[in-house]
């Protein structure tokens, strides 16, 4: 297995790179690979959403993401895990969040990916605004 220089946990104002995450997972794990990409939805109650804007309490968000990383490795027996989240303005065709995991068997990889996203959405201090035609508005937290 090869090591990768790609950070396992990343908050980035630059566009996220799914191909890089995929390559990093494949190079470090054999068996089951599961990838999740979250992208902006283009409608809010019939209104056009033009982009998302993410802001974060960055040091705490990094700490909470690291907790998720370590817990996921422990609970699901992952070989490798990447969690990358976009900050700043995210346009419609871009990734808002990427998760990539590798495990020996598919069930653990699928369940880990779902668990990671559920934890991220409930504990990591990141906030999302939708940019509509008449301004930008914080999105109410949702499951």
């Amino acid at each position, binding site marked *: 297995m090869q090591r990768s220089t790609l950070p396992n946990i990343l908050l980035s104002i630059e566009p996220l790179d799914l191909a890089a995450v995929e390559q990093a997972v494949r190079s470090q794990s054999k068996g089951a690979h599961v990838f999740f990409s979250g992208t902006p939805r283009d409608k809010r109650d019939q209104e056009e959403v033009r982009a998302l804007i993410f802001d974060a309490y960055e040091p705490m968000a990094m700490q909470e993401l690291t907790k998720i990383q370590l817990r996921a490795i422990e609970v699901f027996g992952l070989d490798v895990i990447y969690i990358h989240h976009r900050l700043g303005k995210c346009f419609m065709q871009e990734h808002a*969040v990427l998760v990539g995991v590798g495990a020996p068997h598919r069930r653990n990889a699928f369940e880990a990916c779902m668990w990671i996203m559920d934890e991220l959405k409930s504990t990591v201090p990141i906030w999302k605004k939708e940019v509509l035609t008449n301004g930008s508005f914080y999105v109410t937290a949702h499951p």
Partner: protein
Amino acid sequence: MEHSLNILAFGQASLFCGGSSFVINAALPITVDELRCLIHKKFPMMPTNYMVAIQLEYASNDQIIGDSNCEIAIIPPVSGG
């Protein structure tokens, strides 16, 4: 003697306090719950469904704040992903 606590505000909470931080004057030590009461007095329109973080960790309502230099933040409901 009162101390000045610098409180960081994020997300929706920043809209109600007019920026990314504000100051609460309080006699230390106080609990997180007591801090919440002081914040509510200063910003009565701010929704109270936020968590408080101390030194980058979520804090319980009975946790004690005894140091005015600790980093305190208001964490409204998160919406990443």
